[in-house]
């Protein structure tokens, strides 16, 4: 068993797969943040559609990722490759992102909003000066969960032609190459752990000291 031996022997390949992996996650994150934070903000103001949207997200979340990849792969115009991978991962990011934005905004103490309104803040001022800053730690936690999740599920995109760390695991299994499997699994796990750790540190930093006591409770 010598997985770092495998890594050393195949540095070019491992590096390529790793970079591919990271770039896929980055692209997905870019689109997901724009799309789902906006959706989260919108549904926080329209309670009637909020329930529907959030349960839609949870349903999507229950579908095995491989099914979504496989299914969208068969849609004409998408096929194998990055486009499908991006689309599916963006869909997966919906649940944690929309939910955290919605829950974050809804968790703001109503008396604070009442006070803001009573002092003459407009709806948008309440949103951007009270709700968003107070929800921000929760939203960031949601982003953190999403990034970790996407990093993990992105491994499955290897089955629709993505050349990323999932491919090391997949090919390792088909070829019975244990070192290859472990190399893939270890690198992708380390990336996920590192992202989780770093974002956890950032989360602590960006949370207003006035809100920190709540997390400590």
């Amino acid at each position: 068993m010598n997985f770092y031996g495998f890594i050393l022997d195949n540095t070019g390949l491992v590096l390529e797969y790793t970079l591919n992996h990271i770039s896929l996650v980055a692209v997905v994150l870019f689109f997901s943040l724009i799309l789902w934070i906006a959706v989260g903000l919108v549904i926080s103001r329209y309670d009637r559609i909020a329930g529907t949207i959030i349960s839609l997200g949870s349903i999507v979340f229950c579908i095995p990722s491989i099914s979504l990849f496989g299914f969208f792969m068969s849609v004409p115009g998408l096929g194998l490759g990055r486009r499908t991978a991006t689309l599916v991962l963006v869909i997966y990011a919906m649940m944690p992102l929309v939910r955290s934005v919605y829950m974050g905004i809804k968790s703001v103490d109503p008396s604070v909003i009442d006070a803001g309104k009573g002092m003459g803040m407009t709806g948008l001022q309440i949103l951007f000066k009270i709700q968003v800053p107070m929800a921000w730690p929760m939203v960031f936690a949601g982003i953190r969960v999403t990034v970790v999740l996407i990093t993990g599920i992105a491994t499955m995109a290897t089955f629709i032609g993505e050349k990323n760390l999932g491919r090391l695991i997949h090919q390792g299994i088909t070829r019975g190459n244990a070192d290859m499997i472990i190399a893939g699994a270890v690198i992708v796990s380390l990336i996920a752990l590192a992202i989780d750790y770093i974002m956890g540190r950032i989360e602590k930093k960006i949370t207003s000291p006035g809100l920190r006591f709540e997390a400590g409770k």
Partner: protein
Amino acid sequence: MIRVDNIKKTFPGANSPAVDQVTFNVNEGNICVFVGPSGCGKTTILRMINRLIEPDQGDIFINGKDVLEMNPATLRRTIGYVIQQIGLLPHRTIEANVALVPGLLKWPRDKTRQRVLELLEMVGLRPGEVGHKYPHQLSGGQMQRVGVARALAADPPIMLMDEPFGAVDPIVRIRLQDEFLRLQQTFKKTICFVTHDINEAIKMGDYLVIVNQGRIVQMGTPIEVLTSPADDFVLRLLGDDRGVKILDLTRSGSLMESFQAPPKTSAGINGCIVQAIQPVKIALEMMMKNNSDQVGVCSGDKIVGILTWNSIKAHINRVSGDGP
């Protein structure tokens, strides 16, 4: 200053209106206290004045201007608002919280900062000590003070206060009430004040509006309400110690027998004296302390009259006699 004319509000899904046929005026510089049991509609009335709740019918005028035709946000920036839960923004420092409305009104930074420091000082907080703290680092009483300072920030002529001292312990509450009354003597704001505590209402109010089941059951100055309660409900609300409450609002000077000429000696008084402007309750306290049935009443350092136990008793019988 504030004129409310026959407003009515029924919340969706409710069988009976929360507020109905409510009409009153609040004069400039007065504290008008809305008092009644919880759920009686007093908070709803208050929240209609700054349009946090829209009345179904009726009119509300501030300085002759129809509130319902003004932009709600602009209107609210000219009205101070204090609530029991305070609602300080937890993610902002105390200074930033007080600076909220000046910020909305786009005051220059220097002016805002000046004002914030002045206000914190005014409500009895040390700006250097609490200014950079966050709300959760303050005690309940300190937070209430910040709440008041924040409402006063843009110097609004009108303030709406909903149980503003309700969340603190009785000792702190009394101190906050006293300090607020002291501030009000210089500010002369027009204030609508909601409470369920009749003692607080009598203490704070220039004028009482007693509300029950969405309707006004009685209006008047505290002494008017105490001496002639409109019905059984008001009588119960005032409590069994109504007579003592009256004595708290009656000046010793008003019940004394004045001397035609200043007495040569203070015989029979034995240094047992009160000031004419002090409430009769204080005179009673003095009598008990000195085991006497009379006290001398002074104006400044001159004895101007004498107040006897019998005249107090007669007064109580007279005013509590005319119950409903």
